[in-house]
């Protein structure tokens, strides 16, 4: 691949667990109480250095949403999903924001989050929750 265009984030940030690419700033956390199949997930208002996958409708705990998976631009591993549209009024605040799975990122101090049971993990989780 060519010379990757990587954005460098200033300040405390979460990075991709595998390749350390900066993904989002701690300041951009909107909510820490999201869930995915593999544990906790955080909702961020802005993420960087990700590519967006195919849009699809998913039924989550809070209703029907149009989401797309997001992948780290450098290593290509899936890191979460982004909300394209929310079909319920009270979920509209999520539109345009992205969720990063805690399992897939290293925290600002480099800490990682381990899943309770390391089952066969292929794709990112769904589930969601306010």
């Amino acid at each position, binding site marked *: *691949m*060519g*010379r*990757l*265009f*990587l*954005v*460098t984030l200033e300040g405390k940030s979460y990075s991709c667990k595998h390749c350390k690419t900066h993904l989002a700033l701690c300041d951009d956390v909107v909510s820490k109480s999201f869930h995915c199949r593999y544990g906790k997930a955080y909702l961020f208002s802005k993420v960087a250095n990700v*590519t967006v996958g195919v849009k699809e409708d998913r039924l989550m705990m809070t209703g029907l949403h149009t989401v797309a998976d997001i992948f780290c631009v450098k290593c290509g591993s899936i890191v979460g999903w982004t909300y394209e549209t929310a079909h319920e009024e009270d979920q509209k605040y999520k539109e345009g924001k992205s969720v990063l799975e805690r399992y897939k990122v290293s925290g600002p101090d480099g800490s990682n989050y381990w899943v309770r049971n390391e089952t066969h993990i292929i794709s990112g989780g769904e589930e969601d929750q306010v």
Partner: protein
Amino acid sequence: MGGVDSEPPSKRRKLKQSSMAETLADDSIGSKRIKKVEFVRLIAESLHSFGYSNTLSNLEKESGIAVSSGLVNEFIKLVLDGNWDESLNSLRKLSVLDESVVKLASFVILEQKFLELLNADRFIDALRTLRTEISCLSIDQTRVRELSSLLLCSRGNVTKPKPKQEVIIDLQRLFPPDVMIPQGRLVQLVEQALDSQQDSCSFHNSVCVDSLFSDHNCGRSQIPSETLQILQEHQDEVWFVQFSHNGKFLASCSKDKSAIIWEVSLDGRLVVKHRLLGHKEPVSCVSWSPNDDWILTCGVEEVVRCWDVQSGECVRIYDKTDLGMVSCNWSPDGQRVFTGFNDKSIVMWDLDGNEMESWKGEKTLRISDLQVTGDGKFIISICKENMILIFDRGLAKERLIKEDYNIVSFSLSGDKKFLLVSLVNQEIHLWSLDGDVRLVAKYKGHKCSRFVVRACFGGVDQAFVASGSEDSRVYVWHRETGELIKTLGGHSGAVNCTSWNPVNPHMVASASDDRTIRIWGLKGLNSNHSCMCRT
């Protein structure tokens, strides 16, 4: 049966032609209803300027149009001879002119008379002219005062009278155009037509002169579209290519930590001249010195090396401990080197490796280009993700170009007045730097969302914009219209960078992740300096 005349059409036409000379029944031609009289007079003026006096008199006889009245001709002749008084007399005889024009023209003539007398040291006569003739025209009193001051102290070239031709041109401007036709008017009209044909030709990419016999029409064949050569010397992705200013060399640099200088031979093929080895990190960009004697290469967050182009030796290493360099460029005079660092500062060095000045603060980013323009006064770099900074280092003033999406790379036009900005949302924006900074055009169609993909200007008069793309093609747009003209396929990896030879408008180089550089040229031709106007 309404048929009015039963005369056969051919007879009618003949009749018309013979009476054309006298009646000029049909006195406008073409769809724009150009006045025939004016057209014939233009032709006559051209004939007159070529000196074809016989043809000219024949034309006047046949068309019955008096090309220019005898009085005007006489007047012009008298002015050219420098016979000022006589010319004034004949000027007054020209009744077609109104008072004000006569006065202004007289002023011009008398001014010349005055200056001539002054030069001939005939002061009394000059003074008399000024007093009696010029000032009673009561025109342009300031000039009259200037002239009178010249009587007292002559100042070099101000007192010299103008050459007679210039006087005629001045008078032409005063006279209404149908009395004295501006010289070279027909040629001027033809040139305007040619310009407008060229402007509307999206593919115009050659410098040959058009024939007048048919419309200018380049055709797609003028844009390089065929791979002429594949250069396979790099061991890893090639990230940057650039032709030297004189078009004789091409520099490329790669993730394989090396750079290569190629020489463009006379038949248009490129051969390796030097391999520049020494960097310990992938080399992200190269920069040719303004005189093409040296080349700078920048390792990613490493050092900047300066190489001599002829010998291939590394003559200088620019380095700062604990900091990595991210970009480099020359000042326009070739005496200073500017480098960007990964701590967001920019440093200026001299050719011996001494640090001259540094600017700290958010001046540049880790992935950013660096350009220096305006005699070294302005530094251009990407200072924030979506902003380009134009920094006036003398006055410490800043201008910003703000975009809505992250800026991936930018490149400057040859005349340093335009900036081509590549964005992460797959658009290229053209900004004008002259005076106010403003957006001029947008180019779309290529793919650029993950990698640093660069665009460049090129072609005759830099009329085209070329860019790499992540879908392995080279994209070429027409700069004025924004129309996507061509996509060049052939690479098997993302095309990172393109460069158009500044001297040969038919040679384009592209650098790709497939480790090759492709040289593109015209179909069926070697990319030497021949040009075809029409296919």
